[in-house]
């Protein structure tokens, strides 16, 4: 028994680089050999799905991209899945970006979904308005006068020349608002400056780390549903019946979590054994 406890204490002070190697291994293996673990949509993901399902053809959805390459693996799959759902229902999609790199994420997602998959027409079915700096001031501007913030879209077309911009003068003219957000400015600012003052139904997709911060707004009904990180994306892909990058990454995510939980339990055992020995001697 004493030898076993010795082993636990020694293992507890293992060089952390071995742990990195183990994590890398358990993340890579399921990417090569998928396990096909089940994905069960949560209530918050289902709420977003149901809200989008209630939209009718021709309704207008404002989708804001507030993420960049650093958080792409978490947010991009859910943005793509949401766009698929919106275009499937023939909803008109208006894309804004509060992050400069969000514009390129939006271009990539729209090229993949709107152009290549659904063959939608630019300016008629969807429009990329692009990035505007100013954080919450931009949202505030969009709420009061959309055309003061945007006079041209990301391609340089005048808003007055874009057919689907007819009748769009403020955020209140939209039927649905979705923020794909990785931080500030993002979901919280859209709630504070757009959704709450105008009453437009809002959903969000955030990084995992933001879920705790945003969840109070979901609980209070200020946001209708949240997609949290890669699992949220995988759940949404499952709901719309189109598996994508989110689904393929979930096996690796699940296995890595099990291993990390194992490490935490083992580390705690090692800590308590060491502390008990220290007290004893």
């Amino acid at each position, binding site marked *: 028994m004493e030898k076993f406890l010795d082993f636990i204490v020694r293992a507890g002070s293992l060089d952390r*680089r071995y742990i990195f190697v183990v994590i890398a291994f358990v*993340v890579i293996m399921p990417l*090569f050999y998928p396990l096909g673990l089940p994905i069960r949509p949560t209530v918050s993901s289902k709420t977003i799905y149901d809200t989008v399902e209630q939209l009718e053809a021709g309704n207008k959805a404002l989708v804001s991209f507030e993420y960049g390459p*650093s958080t792409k693996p*978490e947010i991009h799959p859910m943005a793509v899945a949401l766009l698929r759902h919106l275009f499937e229902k023939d909803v008109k999609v208006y894309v804004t970006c509060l992050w400069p790199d969000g514009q390129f994420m939006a271009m990539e997602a729209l090229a993949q979904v709107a152009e290549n998959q659904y063959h939608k027409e630019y300016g008629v079915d969807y429009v990329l308005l692009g990035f505007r700096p100013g954080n919450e001031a931009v949202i505030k501007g969009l709420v009061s006068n959309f055309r003061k913030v945007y006079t041209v879209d990301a391609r340089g077309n005048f808003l007055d020349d874009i057919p689907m911009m007819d009748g769009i003068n403020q955020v209140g003219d939209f039927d649905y608002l979705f923020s794909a957000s990785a931080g500030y400015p993002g979901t919280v600012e859209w709630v504070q400056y757009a959704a709450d003052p105008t009453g437009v139904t809002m959903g969000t997709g955030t990084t*995992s780390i933001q879920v705790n911060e945003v969840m109070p707004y979901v609980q209070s009904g200020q946001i209708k549903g949240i997609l949290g*990180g890669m699992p949220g994306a995988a759940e949404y892909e499952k709901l719309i019946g189109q598996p994508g*990058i989110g689904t393929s990454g979930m096996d690796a995510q699940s296995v890595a979590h099990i291993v990390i939980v194992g490490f935490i339990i083992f580390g705690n055992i090692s800590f308590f054994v060491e502390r008990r020995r220290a007290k004893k001697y």
Partner: protein
Amino acid sequence: MNGSEIFGAWVAVFLTLGIFSYLYKDNPFYKIAEHIFVGVSAGYWMSMFFWTQIQPNLFGRLWPVPEGAISGFFMRIWYGIYDIFGFVLPRVFPDGGIDKGHGSDPHFLYLLPFILGIMMLLSVVSKWSWMARLGIAYTVGMAAGLRAYAFLNSNVLGQLKGSAVSFVNIPWFSLTDASIFNNIIILIGTITGLLYFYFSKEHTGHFGKVTRVGIYFLMISFGASFGFAVMGRISLLIGRFTDLISYGGENYNYASLWVLLVMIVLLTVWTIKGDKDTAS
């Protein structure tokens, strides 16, 4: 697959593995990747800000394309200044004015942010650095004013409404939806959590026991945050590995494998050389 895509993949692989190499220890590959990241980010942000805001929305409002010929002494001077700028930077100030849908009359009110912006840049000149304070003061004041109402409305009133939970016409227990049991937990958690931050009374006796419950709720919240943080980091790792796997294919001339191999060899040489230097 064209040449630029393959080149881009090799650069992406090098930068990814360069950053990962820090997990071994601080090394030249990591430093190269870090400096490139910082430099490219700064350049990219500056370029985006200039071409999406300053040029179209500031200069575009100050010098829009006038309707007809420019008339009047002041307007001639105003557009004369524009022509001088245009001579130096023709791409930023094209001939005849900037047409970005802001009408045909200059919006002189926008001179104010223009001047404040220049003042903020003057912080690099020690003699005039005091001027930057005006620009910063405006920004801080504007942000404070803008946020005051929004916070009161969404974070105070909205959350107060959200905390007013119901105890009627809902089931006793549910794992997913609102239930009496869940709402009791929300009620206890909210009150005890708030009481923990009440420091005007010493946390002893019955009050101490109540605030201790508040600590438990806070700890659970921190635990959830930690769990989500781990989940997020693993997601990002999956994203990088997915790219590395795809760049390791034949289409990209096995970029991941080659870069990994070369990096391991060079890091080994660098470590051995470093050890020898330390020993000597």
